[in-house]
């Protein structure tokens, strides 16, 4: 078996095997009042609002998903509050979003 289902490290660096010409990577940071929020639960919801995946943000608030082109909602839950942002990935590559919680 290769990777399991545990959340991989959510650092800002992508795995060396990532091919950004083929893969659609959604990445970003959870912030509150402009400051990173560590350890937030970040949920990726698809175009219909359906849950797709969830990761725990890193110490620096970073998160990352391997998805597909489309319109996505990033929803963050944290002790500092909850929040969400919409991200449109128009094709393969790296797509960034910031999610503010309050």
């Amino acid at each position: 078996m290769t990777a399991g289902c545990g959340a991989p490290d959510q650092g800002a660096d992508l795995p060396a095997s990532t091919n950004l010409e083929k893969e659609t990577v959604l990445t970003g940071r959870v912030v509150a009042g402009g400051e990173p929020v560590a350890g937030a639960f970040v949920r990726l919801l698809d175009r219909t609002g359906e849950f797709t995946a969830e990761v725990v943000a890193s110490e620096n608030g970073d998160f990352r998903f391997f998805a597909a082109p489309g319109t996505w909602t990033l929803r963050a839950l944290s002790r500092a509050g909850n929040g969400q942002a919409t991200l449109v990935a128009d094709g393969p590559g790296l797509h960034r979003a910031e999610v503010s919680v309050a």
Partner: protein
Amino acid sequence: MSREDVLVTADWAEKNLGTEGIVFVEVDEDTTAYDAGHIPGAVKINWTTELQDPVRRDVVTKEQFEQLLSGKGIGNDDLVVLYGGNNNWFAAYAYWEFKLYGHANVKLLDGGRKKWELDGRTLTTDVQERPTTTYTAQDPDLSIRAFRDEVVNAIGSKNLVDVRSPDEFTGRILAPAHLPQEQSQRPGHVPTAINIPWSKAANEDGTFKSDDELRELYAAEGYDEGKPTIAYCRIGERSSHTWVVLHELLGYSDVKNYDGSWTEYGSLIGVPIELGTGK
């Protein structure tokens, strides 16, 4: 089974920390989560290395399970309360495996690590050593475990519940979206399977939805209460979550978890595969 036989709340757990005869067990693939902070007194089990055979692709044997629990200091009479990250996926898998080997008294912490953390409850890095025990397991209860031939034979007759995300079900992607996409299998789903993602059974904070909500959810998706059921996902952990819902919370009698799941089925030569929504 009632909900109280299967789940404990975070409040109950907090009041029962350190109680004789209750062992809290964190189950994560990512053991760094436990190392960075866990429920006081909890021991950890590594899903990948301790609940699966290290060489063959299979759950651990009865003897390996006995060694594992003895080494963790878990006795046959202990109440084991399992919890973990990923909305209890791996804790649910462990719950299923504890049931497979006949542990009488095992429950899940409703909401797992996520709810515990969001509630701001205590986590510690102190590791409590438990004296070893001599644990005796039962022979595996195969009434809750499905193998590949049963899945093929269930096409068109049993409830086949594919609990992966819609994009995995239709064949757009091969793994959940927080993971790199594997290329070793064919995408798609078992023909006649209904797609009821595990996540629909859980609230945002990781707790299970109410029994009434759950019954409605499955009925609305075409689940037939009168038929036996096989649940599957990619590697058998999300389907354990749904197995807990169907077999333990809702009390349907003939429900099996297919732990080989899509990584096995999608690699088999010659079996039927369906693409798209199947509707």
